[in-house]
């Protein structure tokens, strides 16, 4: 009897190391790896959805506050979440997220890029110029935090209250 690829155990039974059993094992491992990857994707999506909802609500609050302010007024606003995201401003003539194409855009997103802000929360404004400081963003790393909204006609300066 030829024993190529067949290892004999003590009882003389054969295990085919090179053939079907190995293939089955590899397929099982790949299958389990795919399932773990799916679990990871669900985990990412679940966490991301909650943060997005927090961002949307927060941006809604900021927008309402701005809209309710007088032409010249200063107000503070408390931001609870999402921690580690950023308030980002895209000017009218810059590349901006698709949600506010062609308008001034205020967003809360994970990173200060157009791609990330397409996945974030954005609100468009007509004829309003925002100033978020030299970095054109306010980090929510230290959330909960307070921001100061300084409105002067069509110019709004938003700074973090230290």
């Amino acid at each position, binding site marked *: 009897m030829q024993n190529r690829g067949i290892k004999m155990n003590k009882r003389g039974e*054969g295990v085919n190391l090179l053939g079907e059993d190995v293939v089955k094992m590899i397929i099982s491992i790949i299958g389990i790896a795919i399932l773990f990857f*799916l*679990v990871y994707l669900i*985990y990412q999506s*679940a966490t991301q959805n909650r943060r997005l909802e927090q961002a949307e609500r927060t941006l809604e609050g900021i927008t309402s506050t701005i809209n309710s302010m007088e032409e010249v007024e200063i107000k503070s606003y408390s931001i609870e*979440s999402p921690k580690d995201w950023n308030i980002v401003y895209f000017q009218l003539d810059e590349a901006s997220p698709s949600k506010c194409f062609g308008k001034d855009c205020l967003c809360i997103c994970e990173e200060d890029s157009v791609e990330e802000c397409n996945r974030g929360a954005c609100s468009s404004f007509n004829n309003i110029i925002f100033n978020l400081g030299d970095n054109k963003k306010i980090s929510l790393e230290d959330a909960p935090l307070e921001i100061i909204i300084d409105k002067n006609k069509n110019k709004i300066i938003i700074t973090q209250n230290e």
Partner: protein
Amino acid sequence: MKINFKMEKSKKKAEMSSTMLVTVILLVISFGILILVISRLNFNAQSEYDTCHLSVIERGSLFDFFNLKEAAPLSCKTKKICVRGDELIDKEKCDEFENVKSVDYANVKSNDQVEKLISEEMITCWRMMGEGRLSLYSDVSADYGIGDVSSNCVICSRIAFNEKTLEKKGVDLKDINVLNYMITHKIPGQNMSYYSYLSGDSPAKISVKDNLIIPVKNETGGIENISINLKDIQIEEANAADEVAILYMQISTPTKMEALGNVGKLVGLGAGGAFVVKGPIGVIKSLPTIRKCVINPYCIGTVVLAATILVTAQQINAELNRGVVAGYCGDVSVGENARNGCSVVRTVRYDVQDIRQYCSVIESIP
């Protein structure tokens, strides 16, 4: 021939067992994923309480393994309540919630009704978040001795007051005493008081000491004790009409960390201690020792808990009695991987500085 037949039969048996094992494993994992996906879908219109509560149970049931609890995010929205005098016409709103959607209005005529509202919101928050018995957060880095132990919070409700209309109805916010209301009134439909419910079967176990000793990890990794004299602590009180938040906070540490256990013993809580005390709304002004402790990641959990319980128990500033702190310290998880920790529900002024005294992360949806 006989030997070959035996070999064939055994080989087939082995093939069947390994195939079945793999199939079973794959089926179990698939089922788990299916449950996760279905739970994300909201088939029926559920109340926000139910949605939050379900998400709390789901998260509390997950293993505390590699931040797996993050896979079940909390779906808890902050409720906004405007308390105003009960008028038939000219119903005014609260300035704090100007242009805010989904505001609930509580029309009241007496102090009792305000106290009842705050008491019920605390009970609702406590129940919704699992009565402090479920571990909702996992901090993998802290478990393995790296990184910080953070306090995680959910803001259950924000309560604002329209002072003008309340004054017309004779409601004086300075006279509000929520703790007294909780002791003297039963929960609607139940045969126990709010106080009894929150403090468990036995009365609150608080032992008050003038000097608090908190263990702190120093730069060299050793443990040193910081002594804080409670008489020196000052509290910045809130104005009577300031907006109030009902906050649920949980700090948990794995059993190998002694910090919270030490504080529990110091304050006479022991294991599984529940407490309800009067709590000032204002923030505790930091003393140099507390500030040092606050920036030390090993100490944050102990000082937040200790300051919350002991300072409020001392009733250093008893002028405004809207503040109540209730909680449970002890095992905050079911299962083998027991965690020691504290869950607290309390009233706090809705102000970033005050909230930051207790919360490093807020998980609720504003």
